[in-house]
């Protein structure tokens, strides 16, 4: 797993080992059997913002209308009132479930999901956040509350593999720093039954896993794109920002296969792409194969809307680079996450725009 995280050559190895040993000792001495957090070097670290983990719409309103002092005081006064689950909550529960299964099969391994809370909230709001985490018994042990400063620098310091936030600007900043990130959008109030035994992650192909051809589509139209694809069928596509995350999921999946649990594997991945299998699908599959990546289901829609299909799949998260598809997914109740990468995010329904997408709720 070492290739998924780069090691900082200047890090003091001895000091780190000491911190790690002390943490291990601490968690082992607890009577509550709380699982200890994995060693960051080997874990798949997913950072979530406080607004994506919990519903803080009402509090956000106080912040906007009455200012930061009133907002922090309000949160302090409601310290012991747990917050309601937010858009990333189902995903976090699903990740915890995968961890539980992994711990049973590999009790000494640190190759697990590590969910950390990354927020620019004031530390005093932290008490309510931690109480809320306790209320739902979430295994989130690491957090960073920066009291107003941008949390982006800390993403690297915590060796983050994926950052989820409702703030499009922070997500763009993270991607520019080379960290996979996506803006979460609350789905419409639709009855959905997400699996509580299997983590389902759906990806759009272009600008999420692959980064080249969508530029051609946007600038020269779909037909030119198909010709280009045929011509370059055997040339792998360049990497998109979430390719490494898909790789990490594959690595964890193989741990289940190794123990004969392929049929009951608690992770399932889906490719949901506008491409058509006939014209450009081949290149996609060949690229994935050349990267050594497996995807459980590849669905080529040939331009048809993604919403209804996603409604059937019910993923815990669906990544797409185009707001048009995000809107479509949302309308039918899918939890969608926008990846602002490449030229895709500057266009919306074919019209050139510049502002980053932001979920104002």
């Amino acid at each position, binding site marked *: 797993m070492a290739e998924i995280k780069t090691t900082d050559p200047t890090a003091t190895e001895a000091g780190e080992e000491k911190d790690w040993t002390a943490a291990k000792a601490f968690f082992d001495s607890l009577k509550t059997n709380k699982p200890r957090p994995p060693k960051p070097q080997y874990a798949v670290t997913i950072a979530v913002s406080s607004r994506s983990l919990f519903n803080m719409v009402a509090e956000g309103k106080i912040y906007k209308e009455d200012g930061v002092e009133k907002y922090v005081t309000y949160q302090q006064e409601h310290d012991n009132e747990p917050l309601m689950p937010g858009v990333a909550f189902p995903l976090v529960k699903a990740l915890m479930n995968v961890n539980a299964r992994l711990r049973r099969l590999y009790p000494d391994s640190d190759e697990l999901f590590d969910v950390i809370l990354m927020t620019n909230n004031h530390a005093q709001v932290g008490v309510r956040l931690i109480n809320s985490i306790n209320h739902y018994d979430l295994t989130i042990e690491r957090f960073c509350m920066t009291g107003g400063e941008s949390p982006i620098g800390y993403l690297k310091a*915590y060796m983050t593999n994926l950052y989820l936030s409702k703030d499009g600007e922070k997500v763009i900043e993270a991607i520019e720093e080379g960290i996979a990130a996506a803006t979460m959008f609350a789905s419409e109030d639709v009855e959905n039954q997400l699996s509580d035994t299997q983590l389902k992650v759906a990806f759009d192909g272009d600008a999420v896993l692959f980064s080249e051809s969508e530029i051609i589509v946007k600038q020269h139209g779909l037909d030119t794109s198909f010709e280009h694809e045929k011509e370059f069928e055997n040339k792998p596509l360049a990497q998109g920002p979430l390719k490494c995350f898909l790789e990490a999921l594959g690595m964890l999946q193989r741990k289940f296969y190794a123990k004969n649990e392929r049929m009951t594997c608690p992770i399932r991945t889906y490719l949901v792409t506008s491409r058509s299998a006939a014209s450009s699908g081949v290149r996609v599959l060949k690229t994935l194969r050349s990267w050594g990546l497996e995807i459980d289901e590849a669905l080529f829609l040939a331009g048809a809307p993604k919403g209804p299909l996603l409604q059937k799949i019910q993923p815990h998260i669906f990544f797409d680079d185009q707001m048009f598809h995000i809107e479509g997914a949302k309308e039918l109740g899918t939890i969608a996450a926008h990846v602002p990468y490449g030229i895709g995010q500057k266009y919306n329904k074919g019209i050139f725009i510049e502002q980053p997408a932001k979920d104002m709720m």
Partner: protein
Amino acid sequence: MDSMVRNPDVKQRDAAQAVVVAVSSDAIFDPEVEQVHGATEPLRKGDAFSFMKAIQVVNERLLTMNSDETLLFDVILLSNDSEEKHSRIIASAKHYGLDIGRFCFCNKEDSIESLQSNNVKLFLSTDTNDVCKALQKGVPAALLYRPTDPHHQTEDQLKVVFSGDVIGSSEEMLHGLREQGFTETQLQGFKTAKGSVKEFAVLMGEMRRRFGLEGSPLCTGLMTVWSSRNVCASALKTLRGWGLLVDEAFCLAGAPRSPILNLVQPHILCLDGLYHMEGFTGMS
């Protein structure tokens, strides 16, 4: 026997009301420079330079808000240097316009006594051994954090970070650590440090409250290195109970601390005895 020299260029603070802080001269001025006999040019800046500038910003803001303010930082420079260096130190302080109220020149052996007799609320050094020794003798002490790139450390805001593992741990939890190999001496060291930290935390809390949430020249933080989130929450509440509402909080739970500290870049790091751990070589 020490020699206490008042700095004529700096207005003397009311030492009973001020936050008296003693800083080792080796931290303020670079001690590595080859000392040539009879040299007169100002000493080179040391690692604690941006800390001194940041303290000045805090004092200036406090006095702007209230010209009669007494809760100010009052810095004593503690020097074990030879007599021929004394005037050079005083001149260098003047050259850089440092807000140093008094200079204390004494032998290394008499340092602790000087600190105790001058109502010092906190002794700061970049040397962990000096900090250890002071804490063991009951003198509140903290580490002046040495960042990897001192020139990038902010001079516009003073950052004080408290270590929360012991503050937030219950007696029971600390006992549990004994089973994990921590010695009785180490555990006792934790408790002594907690007591020392409290007084300084109370003062920082009071000073922090003079400013609003945003735009404050003083930024306070909490960091837990090996404990769970609940210990961090407990530390937050304990500090709140002491009157200190920290701005930032970091719970590492075993994650490497240097990358985080390099971003937080505190000037003052109030340790809780982690330095007692065998073979601990320092934070930087």
